[in-house]
């Protein structure tokens, strides 16, 4: 913060600016710090480009992501031969496909564009689910303390010992087979229809949500404990504010920063979990393209057609880079003291 802004701020405070203005300033300041962080700006720009790509996928993708052109199986555009010279002797050239076509003749580029939808949805819904469950659970535990806290935290401790990935695999196998052959008209049927419409993503969300909220619950509890005893909470209680009001008006706004940062930093984890689940065939339903399932398909022919693995892998890596940069930047911006930790 420059001397100039500090002076302006002091002036504003001396002039009796209302207190609410100050909280807004915190976020404005954080945003200014974020903008000045070059890596974070690059990350943020990539994320915005990805969002545009996901939303306007039908307009951007030159072809359908599911249409199979069996005559064009494994074709390769000419420009790729200079990057992958090993393919020269046997590759069938077709410049209709920017990145080439896969083993059933689907356009790789279009599939990568559509694949952004899956990864980005997981990147936004995953944190949302774990944030909602974790924050509610953690704040109840931290706010009421005592025996409630003790019991609730022991439950989290026990769930923490679940080998996460194994548990998600088991859960997904459970959902997939339980909710596929059921009578229409029931709640389970509605759920499975919703999942089918989302290309199989609903169960991934539930799986990730059920395993990821525990970390958030612990973090929230710790934060609530540290804020709970502050004077302004005491003051609010003195004037008769209800528990709910104290929770939502006074505690949550004060701890939301670290929670947002933690969730942003957790996003790459969610993205790679989804990619892995799709890689082993438990993720999205084919033919919905996911970068993970594309890597799995490509890995079968990595010796002959490396382009089918390399491009989806790059897309996944770039996305994770972007979210990591953005998360780091956000943390530095919201709490400069934490710079470089974690």
């Amino acid at each position: 913060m420059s001397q100039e802004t500090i002076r302006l701020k002091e002036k504003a405070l001396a002039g009796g600016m209302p207190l609410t203005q100050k909280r807004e300033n915190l976020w404005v300041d954080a945003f200014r710090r974020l903008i000045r962080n070059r890596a974070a700006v690059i990350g943020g720009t990539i994320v915005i480009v990805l969002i545009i790509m996901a939303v306007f996928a039908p307009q951007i993708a030159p072809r359908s992501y599911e249409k199979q052109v069996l005559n064009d199986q494994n074709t390769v555009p000419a420009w790729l031969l200079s990057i992958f010279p090993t393919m020269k002797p046997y590759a069938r050239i077709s410049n209709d496909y920017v990145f080439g076509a896969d083993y059933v003749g689907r356009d790789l580029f279009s599939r990568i564009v559509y694949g952004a939808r899956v990864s980005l949805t997981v990147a936004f819904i995953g944190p949302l689910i774990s944030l909602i469950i974790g924050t509610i659970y953690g704040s109840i535990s931290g706010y009421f303390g005592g025996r409630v806290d003790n019991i609730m935290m022991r439950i989290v401790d026990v769930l923490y010992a679940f080998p996460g990935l194994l548990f998600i695999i088991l859960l997904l196998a459970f959902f997939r087979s339980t909710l596929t052959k059921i009578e229409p008209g029931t709640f389970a049927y509605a759920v499975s229809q919703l999942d089918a419409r989302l290309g199989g993503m609903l169960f991934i969300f539930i799986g990730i949500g059920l395993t990821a909220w525990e970390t958030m619950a612990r973090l929230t509890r710790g934060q609530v404990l540290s804020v709970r005893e502050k004077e302004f909470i005491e003051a609010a209680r003195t004037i008769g504010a209800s528990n709910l009001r104290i929770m939502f008006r006074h505690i949550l706004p004060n701890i939301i920063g670290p929670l947002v940062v933690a969730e942003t930093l957790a996003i790459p984890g969610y993205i790679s979990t989804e990619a892995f689940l799709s890689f082993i065939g438990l993720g999205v339903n084919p033919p919905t393209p996911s970068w993970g399932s594309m890597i799995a398909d490509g890995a079968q022919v990595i010796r002959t057609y490396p382009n089918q693995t390399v491009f989806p892998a790059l897309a996944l890596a770039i996305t994770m880079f972007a979210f990591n940069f953005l998360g780091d930047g956000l943390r530095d911006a919201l709490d400069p003291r934490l710079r470089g930790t974690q």
Partner: protein
Amino acid sequence: MGRYIARRMIYLFVVLIVVSFITFGLMHAVPGGPFDREKALPPEIMANLEKRYHLDDPLWKQYLNYLYDVFIPRITTQPPKGTLEDDFLISAKMGGVWLRWMNFGPSYSSRSRTVNDIFRQQLPISAQLGTMALLVALIIGMPLGIIAALKQNTIFDYISMSVAIFGVSVPVIVLGPLLIWIFGVTLKWLPPTGWGAKPPYLLGFLPTNWGWEYFRFAIMPSIALGLGSSAVIARLTRASLLQTIREDYIRTARAKGLQERLVITRHALKNSLIPVVTILGPMFAALVTGTFVTELVFGIPGMGKYFVTSITNRDYPVIMGTILLYAVFLVIANLVVDIVYAYLDPRIRYD
């Protein structure tokens, strides 16, 4: 300390009961059984199979029997019979009696093997991979973090931290295929898939053929798995060391004329490594489950493949056994870290 460990052991027991209960419930809530085929088996055969594996018992009885077989140690004078139902993971002769413990039952899909057979043959490979990935993480991560902290805001710092960002951003399913393509397929330096060790293993999990024949298989998977963790270690080491070298006692050490090298090694490093030790528990846990991913990418015959196929095959004992075993790993890894933590930092006391 003794009481603390005892309490944690009770906690471990509770964890295992809960984990086994939830897993058992989920497994049996899934429609379809282990012997369902495209073409249904004749009912007599089905009934016989279910009888053989006690699947015709009520569920609560199956569950309690399972707990009894796994958790309760037996002390008998009878030697092991060597049948599939009588295979205990721990089976030791002490004086005239046998101590036998942990019978995870027979596998349903590979008919001639027990879950313990799978553990004995496949688990060592996963353990080797996990251990080497942890070593990779430490060997790459700590020097990077130390250099970055000592040369803060120089080109060394930026390079180290870029490597760290790269590490956390490239998951195994990206790095694995890329490594295979570059070093396995194009350059042909390393075998793209497979593993170099076969049973029997020294001490139950160490390979017998140390050397290039073994390590050439292990290099790519360990790096693919360990790089992400090395990035975490690098960032944590850097942050912790930066904090430590600003402490008063470091200034005192410098003021009394101690060589800079000694100030760093004797005073700063030792204290700054405490937070790094604490992360090793969760990290080991992540690596152990991460071996699943790595094994599938590199075609390594470890536990990963068995677990995924056991779920599609409804091989109940393999699913249960694997999840329980990994839960034990996680809890014990965290316990060891807590104990080491108390040893490194005498201010911490568990009572």
